[in-house]
């Protein structure tokens, strides 16, 4: 399971404050703790913490890289912010660019821009692509799969290895009105997206979005994570510092025969 630690995000108050105060220690501490907890990549998202997003993502990347060689997942909808982060990122550690839809009304070629940036960064850098296009986020299974198919085809046509693609079927908060059918639709989509290429693209999601505003955030995240792993999801942007959630990852992977059982399986689970 390729786990991406979600905590270095300006939406969190401690990170927002650290960005405002240029407090390296808070960021480095989060980087180290998430790495130790099993994060293969660390998401880096300026969020709404700073007006100068390009300068801030550079500062975050440089600050993390001073203490930690974990791959970074540069998180922005703006290609210029990603490019700024990439300009100082050590791509030898691998990395992910997060994220782009298939296309946007305002930018038909946005996917190409992300793929171009990943290509120039090197073969160790992947791209998270959302099953979303200029018409917005699809509500059903079929449209999600159709958009994913277009993304995979586009990548393959330009020689971009599908194994560098992370398809994100976009999980929305379950609490939003009329959104309760979406988790089920996403599970069905995951199962079909797996078959779009051989070897298949990775499938990931920003899991915590699902439980936004609910009273049982960790429980909802954990249960859906287990369900999604059982359908073939092999990556997720999660709170890796949530021990119970990490135990669910280990147990789900063991039950899906991705990891060999041993009596101490929780202790030795390694995210690879």
């Amino acid at each position, binding site marked *: 399971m390729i786990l991406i630690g979600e905590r270095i995000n300006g939406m969190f108050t401690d990170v927002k404050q650290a960005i405002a105060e240029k407090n390296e220690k808070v960021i480095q501490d989060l980087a180290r703790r998430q790495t130790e907890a099993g994060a293969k990549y660390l998401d880096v998202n300026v969020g709404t913490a700073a007006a100068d997003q390009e300068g801030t993502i550079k500062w975050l990347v440089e600050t993390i890289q001073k203490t930690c060689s974990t791959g970074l997942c540069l998180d922005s909808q703006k290609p210029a912010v990603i490019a700024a982060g990439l300009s100082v990122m050590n791509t030898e550690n691998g990395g992910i660019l997060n994220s782009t839809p298939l296309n946007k009304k305002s930018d038909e070629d946005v996917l190409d821009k992300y793929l171009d940036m990943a290509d120039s960064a090197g073969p160790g850098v992947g791209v998270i692509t959302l099953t979303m296009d200029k018409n917005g986020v699809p509500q059903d299974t079929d449209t999600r799969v159709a958009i994913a198919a277009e993304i995979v085809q586009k990548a393959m046509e330009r020689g971009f290895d599908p194994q560098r693609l992370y398809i994100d079927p976009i999980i929305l908060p379950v609490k939003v009105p009329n959104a309760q059918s979406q988790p089920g639709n996403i599970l069905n989509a995951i199962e079909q997206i797996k078959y779009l290429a*051989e070897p298949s693209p990775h499938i990931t999601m920003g899991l915590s979005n699902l439980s936004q505003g609910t009273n049982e955030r960790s429980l909802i995240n954990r249960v859906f994570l287990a369900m999604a792993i059982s359908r073939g999801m092999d990556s997720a942007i999660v709170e890796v510092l949530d021990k119970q959630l990490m135990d669910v990852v280990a147990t789900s992977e063991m039950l899906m025969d*991705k990891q060999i059982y041993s*009596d101490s399986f929780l202790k030795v689970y390694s995210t690879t």
Partner: protein
Amino acid sequence: MPIPELVQTHAGSVSRVTLGATKEQGGTRTHTVTIGGAASVVYGGLPEKAGDRPLIAMDVLDTRPDDWPESLSQSFDDVMDSPGKWAAKCVECGADLICLVFDGIHPDKGDKTAADAVAATREVLGAVGVPLILWGCENADKDNQVMPKVSEAAKGENCLIGIVEQDNYKAITAVALADGHNLITGAPLDINIGKQVNILVTDMGFPAERIVTYQSTGALGYGIEYAYSIGERQRLAALSGDKMMAMPAICNVGFEAWRAKEAKLADAPGWGDVAARGPMWEATTAICLLQAGADIIRLRHPKSVAIVKNFIDEIW
């Protein structure tokens, strides 16, 4: 649309273990050997991902065996009272390693003392220059009593010592750690227990990269399919990045193959000449398990050693 190039890549690989220590390294071996390192399925990937060549260890017992069929024992009849001479003869036959098996210390097979075992160890160390495997009698109490002394006698030689099991691992793991040896973790054809033993010994501080795993081997006709599928599954787990399944593997083919009646029964009309049949049984078992991913094969008969080495030469 162009047809994509399909190359399966793996996150992990089998760890490498080096056995033996030369004079410069604090031992007395003439050379060292290295096993493991595979980063693909057996014979299934690029040659540079295949890892190190598998090795043959020949069994030398600390006592003259009384249950070996004549077709096997006749090769060593003149040297079976001297582990040193026996080992030297095995090296002449092409053994990459000597596996000194302390059968004679077993309470039911002679109940020899630790002093006897130490003497046998010293004799073999003096007689050959290849690295050694030191294999207990698989009686937990007696092994715990004797193997620490054996380990100490071979200190600095970077041997492979074992076996340790889920319910009896502490004593031998501790001495292997103290004396700088590599360790064999054993399990009874059970991959879950095999993984658990690896976790237990690494929890004691034993480095994972100095472990070789052993699953009770099944001979051709006697459960080889179980041994094969475990070997295969272990390799796939190693390739997927499971560090507790990434150790090289050793198989005890000689012992298991020569227990089969098909290998040893002389009076068996229609089964062919026993002189050829036994070694073929042993070699066929070995070749099958090599394809499951075995890194060290324990063998007994010079003829099967020649057949298996030839196979490895041809395919490696």
